[in-house]
């Protein structure tokens, strides 16, 4: 049997662990996953890490590797999609209609709007793009609390530190401490995409098959159970 090593964005752990169990059951091949920040993983692949497959949380780091030819361009595909939602703490459960120019600033009031750091964390970058597109960025810019990652942003909301936050749908639905009060329109931000590719150094013949499996219908149910959408 064959063993492959997957470098994947940390937020995929729950879903990917299940998919990999399925893959092993079906093929007898084991997939070992190293979960970390996309940035770290990308740099590691660049430095010659023994990864066969890389799944990034955004296109930017996959592009980075594509530029330095550390992935097989032909194997690259968009694996998963996600949605950006506005979550409220337990005392802010009323639905919010997210549209052009909606009054987010008043909603947040004296508090903070928690989201991923807008310059570095993918969810933060998407959130900033959406707020700009909706014309509310300048009114809330000073109220942004940029977290290290989506989970931390979510924590700020669920702990009541911040009244509202912008996070991925996948994270929000699993947290009983917060409620999704609105979903950002798909067109308000660049598509949220988790791209996948085989690394240039991979010598594993199973890598391509793995990607095929992970994009199959069998895996789709597992991803969707976590709130992801499988991109075709």
């Amino acid at each position, binding site marked *: 049997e064959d063993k492959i090593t997957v470098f994947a964005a940390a937020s995929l752990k729950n879903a990917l662990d299940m998919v990999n169990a399925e893959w092993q059951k079906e093929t007898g091949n084991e997939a070992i996953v190293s979960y970390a920040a996309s940035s770290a993983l990308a740099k590691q692949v660049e430095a010659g890490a023994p990864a066969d497959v890389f799944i990034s949380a955004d296109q*930017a780091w996959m592009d980075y590797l594509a530029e330095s030819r550390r992935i097989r361009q032909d194997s690259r595909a968009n694996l998963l999609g996600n949605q950006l939602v506005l979550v409220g703490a337990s005392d802010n459960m009323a639905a919010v209609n997210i549209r052009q120019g909606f009054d987010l600033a008043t909603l947040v009031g004296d508090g903070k709007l928690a989201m991923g750091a807008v*310059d570095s964390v993918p969810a933060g970058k998407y959130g900033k793009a959406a707020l700009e597109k909706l014309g509310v960025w300048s009114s809330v810019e000073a109220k942004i609390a*940029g977290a*290290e990652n989506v989970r931390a942003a979510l924590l700020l909301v669920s*702990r009541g530190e911040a009244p509202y936050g912008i996070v991925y749908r996948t994270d929000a639905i699993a947290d009983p401490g917060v409620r999704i009060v609105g979903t950002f329109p798909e067109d308000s931000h660049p598509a949220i995409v988790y791209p996948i590719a085989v690394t240039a150094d991979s010598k594993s013949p199973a890598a391509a098959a793995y990607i095929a499996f992970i994009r199959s219908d069998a895996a789709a149910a597992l991803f969707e159970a976590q709130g992801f959408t499988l991109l075709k």
Partner: protein
Amino acid sequence: MDWLVLSDAEWTAIRLSLRVSSVAMLVSLPFGIAVAMLLARGRFWGKSIVNGLVHLPLILPPVVTGYLLLMLFGRRGPIGSFLEETIGLVLSFRWTGAALACAIMGFPLMVRSIRLSIEAVDRKLEQAASTLGAGPIWVFLTITLPLIIPGAIAGMILSFAKAMGEFGATITFVSNIPGETQTLSAAIYTFTQVPGGDAGAMRLTIVSIVISMAALMVSEVLAGMAARRVERT
């Protein structure tokens, strides 16, 4: 050398880091000395629990420490709400919170240094002072404290350096708000998270190193002066 020019936001982060690190170092000093005394000299039940608690920030991944800080010192946390109600001290999303996080992360390092120094103090000197009429507090202030200055300085510089480098617990606890909680480390981290951010990260890293080296050298000089006066008789 264009990439070496610092933006306003970066200057802000530098100033903030200096403030946060200095405050963290100075505020934790008295606590560090007190706890080090307790651990070096005290004999009480639960000493190893205190010792363990002190080391906790070292043992736990910084994210977990940040998480615990949020639980305790957040707006809704038991200590956080108490502090806000009684003395009006708000920590969450404030630079004060960043200072707290840094102080706590550096605390085990500070305590260890001071404790080692205390354990090296010749207790016979303290005895001599007591026969001359100095009560325990005076003995501490006039004999023990001056003799542990080198250790206290070592502890302070470790705490300061750690505060300059700390970011996991800080960002988890107080987020990454430019001008309020975005320290140099957080800014460096931000650069590392975007493709092509290397130059920026490098620039700020150099700044951080320069500051810390300067602090380090000052500390060495001070410790040297203190030690020269205290050489063994």
